[in-house]
């Protein structure tokens, strides 16, 4: 029987990491995610693992790179300013086809910004974030339960597709407490890590984990190989939750904490007799384009809500049918910018066909 617990979102991430078999964590303190390193600094040593508080975010991501190259499950976590610093290492991990989980509890920016909930790092996460042209898996939890479940999924997807995976949450989800069922690690079939450096052993061929490709055509071939892998991800791993979309004349769409507020607003609209549905993408990369395309065959009106001036809205516009109209309502991050359900209901009224 799975245990039922009442914990913070950040703690759920740490618990899930341990359950997923992660024994190596490298991080640096930053609000609003410090509960994660604090939890793991207590939890990992007793399990034969290692917790290192690194000297910088850059060092932490590179420790992740080194540990991952030896084949172990490992994780780091941070927030906006720290995630920016990690981009160098994330790019190298992507270039070296290394798995590893990165948790981003988004805070307001740019710069030092603030510690309030934000979704303005959507572009940074879903477009790769660093140099060179790559993508990483991005999962967007909307509850403490999903913080737990998607962290565990991030480890599996990262191992299967040999690329970094990010759990992209915000400070609302990270800091709030909800009840969680601590599900056991699923028995996912994982590929053999036949590429890890291990000290080659006598008679074994040398193994090299690297991202430098200087040979004629090597780099180009690498890009096309990864392109095909991203397509495979899109074909197999898109996840979303949709609610009352079957007869909807307007589909409200949002991810993470914003989707929870939107859900209440959609219920208010239904009560008022309006045919309104909700579409909540769970995987932001791969983005569930196909699902949006399907919805837009019948429903011609979409309302995207984000805690930014509009980022995911671009992906929605690229996904829906040409004759579908996409409206946007955004509250850029900062103190007092979280919208109320009434406010969103007001927006629904405004654009409802």
């Amino acid at each position, binding site marked *: 029987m799975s245990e039922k617990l009442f914990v913070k979102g950040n703690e759920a991430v740490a618990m899930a990491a341990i359950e997923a078999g992660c024994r*190596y964590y*490298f991080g640096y303190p930053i609000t609003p995610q410090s509960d994660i390193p604090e939890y793991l600094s207590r939890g990992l040593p007793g399990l034969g693992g*290692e917790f*290192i508080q*690194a*000297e*910088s975010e*850059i*060092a*932490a991501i*590179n*420790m*992740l*790179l*080194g*540990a*991952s*190259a*030896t*084949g*172990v499950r*490992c994780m780091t976590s941070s927030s906006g300013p720290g995630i920016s610093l990690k981009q*160098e*290492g994330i790019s*190298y991990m992507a270039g*070296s086809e290394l798995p590893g989980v990165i948790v981003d509890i988004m805070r307001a920016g740019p710069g030092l910004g603030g510690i309030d909930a934000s979704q303005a790092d959507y572009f940074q996460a879903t477009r790769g974030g660093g140099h060179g042209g790559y993508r990483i898996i991005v999962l967007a939890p909307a509850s403490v339960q999903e913080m737990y479940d998607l962290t565990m999924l991030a480890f599996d997807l990262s191992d299967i597709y040999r690329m970094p995976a990010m759990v992209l949450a915000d400070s609302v989800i990270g800091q709030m407490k909800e009840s969680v069922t601590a599900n056991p690690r699923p028995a996912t079939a994982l590929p053999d890590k036949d590429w890890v*450096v*291990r*000290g*080659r*052993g*006598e008679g*074994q061929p*040398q*193994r*090299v*984990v*690297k*991202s*430098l490709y200087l040979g004629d055509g090597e780099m180009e071939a690498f890009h096309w190989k990864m392109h095909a892998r991203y397509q495979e991800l899109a074909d197999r791993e898109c996840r979303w939750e949709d609610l009352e979309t079957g007869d909807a004349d307007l589909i409200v769409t949002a991810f993470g904490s914003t989707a929870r507020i939107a859900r209440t607003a959609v219920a208010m609209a239904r009560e008022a007799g309006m045919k309104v549905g909700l579409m909540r993408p769970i995987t932001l990369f791969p983005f569930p384009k196909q699902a949006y395309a399907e919805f837009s065959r019948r429903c011609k009106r979409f309302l995207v809500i984000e805690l930014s001036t509009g980022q995911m809205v671009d992906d929605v516009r690229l996904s829906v049918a040409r004759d579908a109209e996409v409206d946007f309502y955004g509250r850029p991050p900062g103190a007092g910018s979280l919208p109320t359900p009434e406010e969103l209901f007001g927006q629904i009224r405004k654009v409802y066909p």
Partner: protein
Amino acid sequence: MRQVFARPESLKDVQTHFCPGCNHGSIHRLVAEAMDEFGIRGETIGVASVGCSVFLYNYFDVDVIEAPHGRAPAVATGAKRARPDRIVFTYQGDGDLAAIGTSEIIHAANRGEAITVIFVNNTTYGMTGGQMAPTTMVGQKTSTSPSGRNQAKDGYPIRMAELLAQLEGVGFSARVAVNNPKNVIQAKRMIKTAFRYQVENKGFSFIEALAACPTNWGMNPLAANERVGDEMIPYFPLGVYRNTANL
């Protein structure tokens, strides 16, 4: 007939890309000899850096992780913590270790990570074409210090072996050179001691190897070798700066 000289097993039988007179080849060889003598080739993980030393995996017959510029000590930390039963070494140049990677080397050393760091100081950025490095000598002309390094605005060459020797986490720190047979023999002994630290689990070990870069110094190999003795060693004295286990 007795064989008195052979390629170390830890080195591959390939030509290197290094320029004529470059000391990377000699230093590679000494590191490989140390690995052979401890019989650790099969359990060693090398961490390559960015610069002329990036092709470590083409020359050393060991598993290798390629690190971002300056980050090799952090990458090595992750690898060693995950596989404490393995021998992990980094091989880094002066731009890599003493400029962009200063933070990583200081903190890996200060944590006393059980790794071995081979630091090659040739007073210049070799691969990018001879720009000023943190170890460039005062007055030395480079492609980005055309009038010579000016200490008033560029600061002074950093002495890493002495600097790291101040840290409690460091087991062994020494500076060597390979500009003459006597120094090569001494360098071999020091590099072996550095690996012995790791093999015997005695803590972090650091070797700074002074090296010639004839191409970027605009010198022939002989003149470059002489410069190591005449200019570098007086400023970067050879010797052991820390040896906590007296190995």
